[in-house]
């Protein structure tokens, strides 16, 4: 027994310490590693140069998501660089004995969608990926964080990483959401409150009644964007919702192993009285649908608000940043956010491409049509999400409404494949970053929930979805 109450983060950390080197620096064991084609070629090259094998091939799982086109799946890939990068991941996985989900497999999809879907993600483990949105998996009570390519190499060779223990930040969410307001609005609000670097050095635990009431998809949306406040780790305590979601998935333990696993997982939540270094309280019932106005996810406001005056932005650096962002976004200080005309709509990404997200968007799209002159695409997070959506008829709703229905991948969130905006184009996007050039050089991104993006698609403007929802 431990004398003092511990947080979920404390428990996850201390159960993976291979070597405690003092001052919070520890060598941490890594249980599982997800690979994709972009952050691993140089890691494999490093292993090859040092003559090192992959220490434990079964602890890794690879999938193609970033560079892959979302049209014409199965046909040749037009971009020779993308084709070569994908072929290189396939060759590297063969050489080093790592399982790779084939491009044509129904299990292919965005790494942060398929990991949980296959049960590769589970409570109590450490999980890393060469991708900053790896905190998504923290929704299951896993210590999950993004790493660089060199650390991918390290994990493949050793299954450990040297890390500094984070401080802890509790985000406690009370109250119930108003209709048409949800997880995306919550996390955008949290990022706005904390600021883009406000949680650097902290591991965030999201807790409170509003989090406990969330589905796993909603929890993943919240944890996914933790990095946009500067923190690599976002956690939700595992509970009955988590266990029910995981049971029977391919990688999940079975039979006696399941019983044993679940007994351990029940001990993970933060103990009553556990002390956090910081706390942020949010009342979910006070939230309206959120939309970003700037070029950083913390530049966010309620849809009914106006483009803020940079002079009201606090520090001089924040003022300069706001001025630059408003200029880049082509907006007017004091102008209403609602009603800003858009050119493109993207529904997808590791933040919002799960079946629940597609259902929320389809509810708004049903019986309506994408506005004239607007191009809208729906990119499911995985082959399994796509299949489920088609079984529910969501594809027909989207197609009838004038949306394109695509194959799974990161697509217009990172704009590495042929899904890319033209300079100056304005996009209503369910993704996670509105950085300058993120969706293509000169592209302008407004982040929002799937329902809000669908509302923007059918009206051609940033729209308060509550005025459409019935």
């Amino acid at each position: 027994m431990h004398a003092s109450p511990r947080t979920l983060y404390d428990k996850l950390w201390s159960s993976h310490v291979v070597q405690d080197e003092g001052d919070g620096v520890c060598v941490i064991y890594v249980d599982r590693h997800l690979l994709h084609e972009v952050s691993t070629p140089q890691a494999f090259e490093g292993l090859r140069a040092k003559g090192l094998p992959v220490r434990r091939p079964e602890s890794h799982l690879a999938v193609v998501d970033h560079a892959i086109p979302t049209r014409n799946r199965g046909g040749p890939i037009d971009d020779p660089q993308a084709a070569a990068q994908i072929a290189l991941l396939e060759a590297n996985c063969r050489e080093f004995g790592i399982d790779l989900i084939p491009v044509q497999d129904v299990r292919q999809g965005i790494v942060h969608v398929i990991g949980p879907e296959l049960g590769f993600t589970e409570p109590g483990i450490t999980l890393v990926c060469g991708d900053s949105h790896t905190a998504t998996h923290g929704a299951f009570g896993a210590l999950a964080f993004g790493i660089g390519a060199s650390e991918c190499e390290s994990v493949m060779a050793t299954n450990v990483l040297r890390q500094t223990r984070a401080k802890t930040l509790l985000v406690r969410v009370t109250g119930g959401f108003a209709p048409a307001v949800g997880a995306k609005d919550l996390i955008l609000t949290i990022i706005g409150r904390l600021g883009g670097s406000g949680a650097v050095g902290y591991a965030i635990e999201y807790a409170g009644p509003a989090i406990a009431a969330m589905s796993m998809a909603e929890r993943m949306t919240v944890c996914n964007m933790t990095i946009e406040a500067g923190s690599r780790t976002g956690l939700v305590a595992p509970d009955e919702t988590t266990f029910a979601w995981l049971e029977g998935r391919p990688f999940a333990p079975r039979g006696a192993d399941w019983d044993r696993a679940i007994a351990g997982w029940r001990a993970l939540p933060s103990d009553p009285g556990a002390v956090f270094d910081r706390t942020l309280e949010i009342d979910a019932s006070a939230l309206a649908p959120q939309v970003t106005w700037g070029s950083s996810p913390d530049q966010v406001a309620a849809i009914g608000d106006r483009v803020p005056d940079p002079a009201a932005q606090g520090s001089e650096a924040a003022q300069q940043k706001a001025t630059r962002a408003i200029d880049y976004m082509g907006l007017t200080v004091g102008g209403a956010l609602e009603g800003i005309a858009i050119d493109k709509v993207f529904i997808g990404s590791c933040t919002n491409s799960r079946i629940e997200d597609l259902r929320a968007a389809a509810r708004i799209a049903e019986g309506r049509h994408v506005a004239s002159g607007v191009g809208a695409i729906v990119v499911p997070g995985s082959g399994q999400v796509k299949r489920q959506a088609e079984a529910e008829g969501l594809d027909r709703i989207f197609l009838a409404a004038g949306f394109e229905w695509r194959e799974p991948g990161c697509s217009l969130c990172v704009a590495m494949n042929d899904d890319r905006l033209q300079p100056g184009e304005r996009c209503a996007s369910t993704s996670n970053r509105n950085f300058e050039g993120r969706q293509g050089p000169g592209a302008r991104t407004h982040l929002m929930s799937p329902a809000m993006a669908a509302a923007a698609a059918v009206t051609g403007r940033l729209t308060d979805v509550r005025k459409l929802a019935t």
Partner: protein
Amino acid sequence: MEPLVTLTSRLAVIPDADIDTDIIFPARFLLLTVKKGLGRYAFHDKRRVGGVEIAGFPLAPGAADPARILITGPNFGCGSSREQAVWALHDLGVRVILAASFGEIFRSNCFKSGVLPIILPQADLDRLLAAGTLTVDLAHQRIEAPGVTPLTFEIEDWRREALLNGWDDVLILLKTQGDAIASFEAGRRAEAPWLFTTTL
């Protein structure tokens, strides 16, 4: 990895806050699978207006005497984990970056390529701006500049030692932690055997 002990260089200054790794290394160049020669893509879009290169951008490829020390705004390297951002800066000759704060993954990535990210209060950074040239002494964790009282900075011991010696992280971990890893792993296998199989 190339060791870093002391370095004297003229300064490059890019004062913007929150320069994310998409700005440092735009995503479309991530299709390249190499590690070397990426400097030409560093700040690719930020260095251009309407497709035309801005003359005198502080860090540009092909400089005869490149600045090897960069002073920049807070939260430098936030966003994506892409290590190409570090490789590209390193390829331009950058070995030291000073800022009030860094994106965590970017900061960690720097050390893997022999780049030293130094965190200093903004007021100290502002004082250094006018100096033009700096000397960074990693062993003594000191920064000297003409006309400025020398400053000290913090860095984790293990990271300082690795940089000073040019140690490769992976080889060091295998050499020093091999037994500890094996022992931990045996315990992990006993308590969660399902993590040691694959079902794909």
